[in-house]
């Protein structure tokens, strides 16, 4: 007897209707679909196996498993490996034979949501929370589906219900926090994201969300904490999207600080750094200038602290010690010298223009 799961599809047009009761032979009718399911279920049961059967208007899909295995576990493993479309008919089949199974309804809802079929998703998830109002993830799933549909106003309530259903669930708190951030309700978002961090201390999205909320709430202490969290995200998940967002947030914040210190005007120190850098580039030539700029850019991947005046950085391509702002100024000058349209990620155009003007004079 085969112990491996097997699967096959058969177009309905090829199914031998003589195998079905006379009153179930109209292809596509409910009686036909039921009879086809029963046919395979009994055939495989007679051989000590179980069959999950899904019949739609075009074909029948059959998944066979050893009698003692758990079909839901197998189908969930399909979902986890990204085979969502393949798993869906079998989940539907399970949902039909066990319509009050909350786990099946929840997974159906999430599968439909992942496939962009949000109405179908919401129907299943609402049924799941009707049967089990404490299913926090199903409530969150409803909120996420509404959010993806662009119906933000409908997304908040289920997300709040998720957090109420299980206040210790970090996933629900994180999603509610993000939702509140989008609505600019920063204080409330911050409270939920702090709870989320307690439950999910190693989740990059949670740490990033909390940092963003702290930054939005503002105040020196919050901003410092936010910066620490951004740095953690950058260090722990290098190369990830969330790290890139954290890096962008840090750069933006540092840039704002830098300008604030001079009342929003030109930074003469930056202008001098740039003018010096341009002199150096003239001496060493474009190839070396490019090396210097790229080395700084690579260093910048880990974050350069441009608000700390300490000369704590060194380069392989250039002798001396530098502050973060000094390095960023050199990099800006190098990149603009290579390609005036390049975006170095920080706006020092005014200082660059002033430095160029000063050198011309």
């Amino acid at each position, binding site marked *: *007897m*085969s112990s*491996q799961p*097997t699967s*096959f*599809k*058969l*177009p309905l047009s*090829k*199914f*031998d209707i*003589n*195998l079905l009761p006379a009153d179930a032979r109209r292809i596509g009718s409910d009686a036909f679909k039921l009879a086809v399911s029963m*046919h*395979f279920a009994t*055939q*495989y049961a007679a*051989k000590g*196996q179980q069959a999950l059967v899904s019949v739609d208007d075009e*074909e*029948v899909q*059959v998944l*066979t498993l050893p009698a003692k295995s758990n079909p839901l576990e197998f189908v969930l493993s399909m979902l986890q490996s990204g085979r969502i479309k393949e798993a869906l008919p079998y989940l539907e089949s399970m949902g039909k034979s066990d319509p009050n199974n909350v786990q099946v309804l929840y997974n159906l809802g999430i599968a439909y949501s992942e496939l962009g079929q949000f109405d179908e998703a919401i129907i299943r998830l609402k049924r799941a929370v009707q049967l089990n109002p404490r299913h926090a993830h199903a409530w969150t799933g409803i909120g996420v589906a509404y959010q993806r549909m662009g119906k933000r106003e409908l997304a908040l309530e289920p997300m709040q219900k998720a957090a109420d259903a299980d206040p210790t669930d970090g996933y629900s708190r994180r999603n509610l926090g993000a939702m509140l951030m989008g609505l600019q309700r920063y204080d409330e978002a911050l409270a939920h994201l702090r709870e989320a961090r307690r439950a999910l201390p190693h989740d990059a999205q949670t740490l990033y969300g909390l940092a963003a909320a702290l930054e939005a709430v503002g105040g020196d202490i919050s901003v410092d904490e936010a910066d620490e969290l951004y740095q953690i995200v950058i260090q722990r998940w290098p190369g990830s999207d969330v790290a890139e967002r954290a890096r962008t947030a840090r750069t933006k914040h540092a840039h704002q600080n830098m300008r604030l210190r001079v009342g929003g005007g030109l930074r003469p120190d930056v202008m001098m750094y740039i003018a010096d850098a341009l002199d150096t580039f003239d001496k060493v030539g474009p190839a070396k200038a490019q090396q210097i700029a790229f080395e700084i850019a690579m260093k910048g991947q880990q974050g350069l602290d441009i608000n700390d005046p300490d000369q704590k950085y060194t380069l392989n391509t250039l002798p001396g010690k530098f502050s973060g702002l000094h390095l960023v100024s050199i990099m800006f000058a190098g990149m603009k010298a290579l390609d005036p349209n390049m975006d170095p990620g920080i706006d020092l155009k005014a200082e660059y223009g002033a430095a160029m003007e000063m050198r011309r004079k």
Partner: protein
Amino acid sequence: MQRLRAVTGGILKRVEEQTGKSIQFMRDEQLSMLATLQIARNGADFHVLRYRPSNEPLDYMIAFQAGFVLRLFENEPSQRFDFAPSPTAGGYVEPLLAVGQALGPADKNALPEFAKFVAQWALMNLRSLPIGMRIDCWIATEYPELNELQRASIALQQQQNVDLLSYKLGKLTIPTPLMGAIAAYAVFADRMTDCGTFAIPYEAAGLQGQGRELMRLWGELPADAENDCQLIDTWAAKVGMSNWYTWIPYRP
């Protein structure tokens, strides 16, 4: 190549003794199967066993391939034949594909190539399945050490075959009459493995009668290699493929 089991080495030695030529091993990353055994011809001094590097054991596949060579050489030289598909076999498939349905322009365009593909597939089944079943019986009886690998390989082959029940290109699907050989193989696989479930999809597709009939014919003919060509001819007549190929005398 990976180390072969002693039993597989013994089978290859038998090939060398029976054919009077040695076997050379050749690694081939592009091979679609795990292993093939190409008979020495046109004055070549050795047979070539091509294998694809794999963690899966090759022993059963090699034994299976060797079975075809041994059966050919069990016949007297004058009774050895090559199976030669007709280059126009696709022409026989086209009407089967078009029957009972109105094809759109895209399907009509694809028809000749699809027909050619189906013809090649059906001819390969005709040539390899009935004799392959004889070889499987031989392996099961004489080399029980390979039974586990054999069962795994049969199960894998069954999964590949059953996928063809729903194979389609536009509106074009493999015509039901040409599915008989794989339905027969499913019946055989159920008997060989005590699984009992391989034939279920074919029964649902109305093919089990044809499969059982081919198996009946297979069982009626003696299993000796001298009947191999007749076995194939008998199956071909049953599924309407008699004109799709010829036998030509084997030339070493």
